[in-house]
C-alpha cells in the first residue's frame, strides 16, 4: 500500500484541492502565520496565480476585478486584517454582487495573546451578518471540504460573497506559552 495515499489530508491540502476543483485560480493574500503552509503550497502550484497584497481591501479589489473579467478568486487574511475590509465589502462586493471567497485565519479566540486580535474577532461575525454576507466558522476537518466546496458553488450561482472563518480547532491556531 502507498503510505501517501492513506495519509489523511491536512486542512490546507483540502482547501487547495477544493479551490482547484472549483476553478478558483487567483488567490491574493496578506500573510498569516497559520496560513503559511497553504500560501506556500499555492505558490508551488502553477495552477494558481497567487501573490501578497499590501492591504486586505486591495486584495478584495483585485479579486473583484478578476471576477468581472471571468476569473474566480479567493482572498486570504488574518482576523485583524478583516477589520480593514468592511467598506470594500459594503460598498463594492455586496452591492455589485461579487462572489468573493474570503478565508480568514481566526485569531482572537481559544488562547489568543494579542488583545487587538481578540477585539477585532468580536466584530467579525456581527459585521458579516449585518451586511448579509454568508459566513461559516469551520472547526472540523471532516466538514471542511463539504462546506468550502458547496459554498463556492453557491457563491458563484447566487453571485454573493462568502467568508470562511478557519477556527484554531481546525488549523491549530497560533500557539504561545502563557
Amino acid at each position, binding site marked *: 500500500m502507498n503510505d501517501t495515499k492513506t495519509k489523511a489530508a491536512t486542512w490546507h491540502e483540502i482547501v487547495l484541492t477544493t479551490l482547484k476543483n472549483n476553478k478558483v485560480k*487567483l488567490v491574493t493574500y496578506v500573510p498569516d502565520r497559520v496560513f503559511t503552509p497553504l500560501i506556500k503550497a499555492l505558490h508551488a502550484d502553477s495552477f494558481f496565480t497567487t501573490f501578497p497584497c499590501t492591504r486586505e481591501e486591495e486584495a478584495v479589489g483585485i479579486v473583484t476585478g478578476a471576477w*468581472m473579467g471571468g476569473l474566480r478568486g479567493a482572498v486570504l487574511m488574518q482576523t485583524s486584517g478583516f477589520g480593514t475590509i468592511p467598506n470594500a465589502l459594503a460598498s463594492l462586493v455586496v452591492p455589485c454582487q461579487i462572489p468573493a471567497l474570503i478565508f480568514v485565519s481566526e485569531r482572537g479566540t481559544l488562547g489568543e495573546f494579542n488583545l487587538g486580535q481578540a477585539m477585532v474577532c468580536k466584530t467579525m461575525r456581527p459585521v458579516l451578518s449585518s451586511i448579509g454576507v454568508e459566513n461559516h466558522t469551520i472547526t472540523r476537518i471532516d466538514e471542511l471540504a463539504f462546506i468550502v466546496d458547496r459554498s463556492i458553488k453557491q457563491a458563484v450561482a447566487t453571485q454573493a460573497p462568502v467568508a470562511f472563518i478557519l477556527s484554531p480547532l481546525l488549523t491549530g491556531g497560533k500557539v504561545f506559552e502563557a
Partner: protein
Amino acid sequence: MTTQRTGAVSAHNAKVMNRFELTKRVVGQLKREEAVIGGIGNANFDLWASGQRPQNFYMLGSMGLAVPIAFGVAIAQPQRHVIALEGDGSLLMQLGCLATVAMQAPKNLAIVVWDNGVYQITGGQPTASSSTADIVGIAHACGIANSAWAADEEDFERLVAQALKGGPSLIAARIDDKPGVATTDRDPVRIRATFMQGLGVKRTL
C-alpha cells in the same frame, strides 16, 4: 528610459488641464475594447459623461480601489488592456497598490491619475499632493518605471498611446478644479453586469 525623456516635466511645470477633456482623449484612443475603471467621484462621473462604453466600470464606493480592480481585470484578461482612472486623493488612500502592481508587473495595465490637489467632491480640502507628495515620484519609488507627468494635452495623448503598447505605466495629469460634467447612474448591479457583458464574460444582461 522613458522617465528620462520626460524628466523635465514635473508637477511644478506641467500644464493644468481639464479632466473631462483628457478623459475624452483617453477614450478616443481606445480601439480594441480596452477596459476602463473609473475611480469613485469625478473620475467616473467624467468617464460616464464621455460616453457609456460597455467596457467601462464606474465605482460608486470603495474609495481607493480603482487600481486594484483594474489590476484584477488585467490578470483575468491578459490580452486586453486595462486603464484605471483615479483621483489623487483616492490613490493616496491606497498607495500600497502601486507597490503590488510594480511587483507583479502586468503588461496590460495603465494608471491615469487626475491630480487637482484637492478632495474636490468633499469640499476642496487639500490633498498631500497639493504641497509635498509627488504622485510620479511615489510611483517611481514603488517600481513603476514608466511613470510620468503629462506636460500638456499632446504629451498626455502620447503617453496614453505609449501606455496602450505595454505596461505597467502611470500617467499623472495636473487638472483644474472643475467638477465632473455628469453624474453616473447609481445602479451597481447594472454597471457590473454591463461591464461583464462588455468584457465578453456574460452573454446577456
